[in-house]
């Protein structure tokens, strides 16, 4: 098949492109209106008419833009003023007629009593908000689209660099406006589906998670189609400047293939699983909360010295300490169970996260690859060596802290383990006297006690008498005072008396010894508490 090359038939093709772009914007505005209508319906207002209203308003805005293009300054202002007055009035009349003609006398009577209160009803103000939104965005987009295609013609005689810069600027403006409006559309849809029953009591019973969101998808498809047309305008300008012949069927193919491509893409996006994004959202929330905790912690750290200084001037010292920052939020709960096969769920989840991470890594690598110059500039900045030094110092500190912590933990474990092994040894000696006399057994029990408390303290110093040591120990551990005094008495008797030790005393002392051991395992009771 042969294609006869021909130069672009500028005017006709540009007109078609402008008409198509305008139609796409008008449809996109209708999508925005539909989303807003759904939101108002959620709030109990019957606002289905707003979709058609948005469509007509956007069409009117585009018509007005082209109509007043050739009108001089004053006339243009008058036209705009008339437009801005007429449309709200028409909207009000429509609302009045919609409520019924029998309501009209009452309405007019209400105006006489409180004009602003009754004329600007809630529904009317809500519709006016959409009117302002649609009117502003339609006007800006109509202007930008017109300038974009108008500037394209300059490529035939002007510098290509200048023309391309202008075209890029307007393309970015169109994209930014469409995406801002897209943010509104998504917000409307999300708000219409949001479960606010707990937060907003008057919405009780109006929660509907099945509010349609096809308008959001349609809006973004239209945005992509529109942006592809602006990209075509950019390329067409370059080809015009280079005097490159263009296949006559290219504009049609561009549009058709673009529609097919974005349609298929939308279908794919619609069919791909989204339920696993709940895990993603929870993780995001968790990350945000964690960041908030960190920020609050840092603020607390900064304010702590100030607070401490301020507390010095405070008269009431018994004031309660400020509450501790809340504990870190709990880890996100696992994704809700479903009746599906767990293996399939795992595969789907794996696919979702795999694709998600792959896209992020790919995007980052692409960004780095396409911004090598930016990275080079950043690496030359004076802040970079400082940041690098800081990072290295921080890393060294972390490693040092890790080492210190490890040694502390190891020492602690050793400390914990040592008494326990000692305890086992002592217990063994106590349980198995091995043919010792009752006197020796009593003395052994006391010595075992001394051995037990040697590490945890306070240890008996050389030259301290048993009674003196018992007083010191009881001051530290009053909870074992009775048992310790009994044991000390028994030891002194066994060690220094001449009379034989009564054998039944040994099991009694063993019981005391066990009690002491159990009590020493627990931390010492707070002595202040008793004060």
């Amino acid at each position, binding site marked *: 098949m042969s294609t006869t090359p021909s130069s672009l038939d500028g005017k006709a093709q540009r007109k078609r492109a402008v008409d198509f772009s305008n139609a796409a914007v008008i449809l996109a505005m209708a999508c925005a209106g539909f989303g807003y209508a759904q939101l108002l319906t959620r709030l109990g207002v019957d606002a289905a008419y707003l979709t058609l209203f948005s469509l007509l308003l956007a069409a009117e805005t585009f018509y007005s833009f082209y109509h007043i293009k050739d009108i001089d300054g004053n006339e243009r202002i008058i036209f705009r003023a008339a437009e801005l007055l007429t449309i709200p009035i028409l909207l009000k009349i429509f609302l009045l007629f919609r409520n019924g003609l029998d309501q009209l006398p009452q309405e007019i009577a209400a105006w006489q009593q409180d004009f602003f209160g009754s004329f600007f009803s809630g529904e009317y103000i809500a519709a006016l908000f959409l009117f302002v939104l649609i009117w502003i965005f339609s006007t800006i987009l109509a202007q930008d689209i017109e300038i974009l295609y108008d500037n394209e013609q300059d490529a035939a005689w002007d510098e290509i660099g200048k023309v391309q810069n202008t075209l890029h600027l307007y393309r970015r403006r169109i994209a930014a406006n469409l*995406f801002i409006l897209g943010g509104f559309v998504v917000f409307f849809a999300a708000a219409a589906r949001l479960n606010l029953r707990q937060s907003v009591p008057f919405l009780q019973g109006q929660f509907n998670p099945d509010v349609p969101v096809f308008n959001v998808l349609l809006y*973004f498809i239209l945005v992509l189609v529109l942006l592809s047309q602006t990209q075509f305008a950019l390329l067409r300008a370059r080809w015009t400047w280079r005097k*490159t012949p263009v296949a006559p069927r290219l504009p049609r193919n*561009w549009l058709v293939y673009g529609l097919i*491509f974005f349609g298929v893409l939308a279908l794919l996006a619609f069919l791909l699983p989204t339920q696993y994004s709940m895990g993603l959202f929870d993780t995001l929330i968790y990350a945000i909360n964690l960041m908030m905790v960190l920020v609050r912690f840092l603020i607390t750290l900064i304010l702590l010295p100030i607070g401490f200084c301020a507390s010095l001037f405070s008269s009431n010292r018994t004031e309660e300490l400020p509450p501790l920052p809340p504990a870190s939020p709990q880890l996100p709960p696992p994704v809700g169970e479903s009746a599906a096969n767990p293996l399939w769920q795992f595969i789907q989840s794996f696919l979702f996260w795999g694709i998600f991470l792959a896209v992020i890594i*790919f*995007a980052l690598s692409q960004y780095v690859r396409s911004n090598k110059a930016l990275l080079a500039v950043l690496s030359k900045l004076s802040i970079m060596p400082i940041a690098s030094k800081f990072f290295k110092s921080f890393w060294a500190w972390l490693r040092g802290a890790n080492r210190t912590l490890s040694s502390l933990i190891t020492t602690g474990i050793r400390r914990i383990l040592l008494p326990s092994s000692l305890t086992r040894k002592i217990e063994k000696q106590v349980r198995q006297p091995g043919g010792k006399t009752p006197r020796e057994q009593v003395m052994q029990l006391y010595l075992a006690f001394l051995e037990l408390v040697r590490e945890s303290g306070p240890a008996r110093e050389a030259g301290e008498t048993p009674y003196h040591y018992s007083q010191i120990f009881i001051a530290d551990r009053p909870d074992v005072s009775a048992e310790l005094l009994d044991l000390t008495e028994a030891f002194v008797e066994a060690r220094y008396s001449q009379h034989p030790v009564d054998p039944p005393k040994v099991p009694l002392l063993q019981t005391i010894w066990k009690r002491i051991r159990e009590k020493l395992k627990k931390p010492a009771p707070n002595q202040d508490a008793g004060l």
Partner: protein
Amino acid sequence: MIETLIGLAVFLLFLGAFTQETFVIVIVYLGVGAWLLSRWWTGHILSALQFSRQFETKVFPGETIAVKVCIRNRSFLPAVWLRVQDYYPMELAEQPQFHQVATLGPREQLELSYLLKAQKRGYYPVGPLDFSSGDLLGLSAEQSLRGAVDHMTVYPRIFSLTNPFIPSSSPMGTLRHRQPIFEDPSRPMGKRDYQAGDSLRRIDWKATASLGRLQTKIFEPSIALETAIFLNLNLDEYSPKDWTHGTELAICAAASLANWIISKRQSAGLYTNGADQLNLTDSAAPIPNRKGRAHLMRILETLARIKARQTMPFTQYLRQHRHGLSWGTTLILVSGSAGEDLFDEIIQAQRAGLNLILVLCGWFTDIHEARARASSLGVTVVNLLDDDSFKIWQT
């Protein structure tokens, strides 16, 4: 644009996180999918392209050549836009450049064409064929694909010669000659009455019986022309202000002479110290004496590719290659000048039984002296100053 998309994706993710609405993920899918698929699509289309360039690769100066570029999209995806550009030197340009933006449907084939004009002798690269394409949204940089380079040979101009008066000492050839010493017994021309001294072997007995008196056969004299053209393309032996014109004229003369000789069914060879564009480091390979059209085309192709340069002196080249030539061969020396050393070499060649013609091309100051010197040696000198000078061989 990509920054705006990333910003929107982040906004949507946070909105989704706060509202727990999964439909925003569909929008994120849409944006990310548009970006990824666009990149993949462009690369896929370029890798699925099959293309070829068709044109007459060997042409004569002045001819217009149609170049046909066939492009086939082997993919089931369309190539929405494809910029095709082909490169060629100015010496072949019928139009300043060839570039076009095409569109190809799935598995569609497309033929583009443009014209080249062979304006000057040479061996020219045509291509590479360059394809570039991009995505519908302009989210990624354009990707390109380069094809191979083809070559076009433009033969040198050939002047139609009538009689270049090339001497020969080889009897009994196919060329008629005026000297009766070269009578060819295979070419009887007529009869005459017997004269005393005629060889008995030349008596035509049938005619003698018919006429009743002795008749002797008359034979047409003929020669066999075996020619070696020695083409000097050492720039140092041409006038500096005439380097381009003089060397081109010399190449034209060599081509025209070879054409005339081979058209007369004689053998011709080509020896030159110029550089072949296929092998620029060394002199072009000598083409020994042969007959036939194929041989002529071989000589013309070499002459099309040949380039003048500063290289070994012509006399040295001549000395190296004349020893391989058979006795009686005619040497046509095509050069830009003729110095004493060249005449010394001519004398040596004459002693070796070779016949010589000296063709001096371009502007040469000492032409009279050269003519006088050549005349004393019995060598014909032809001076070609421009295209009109070829008329000397066209009368």
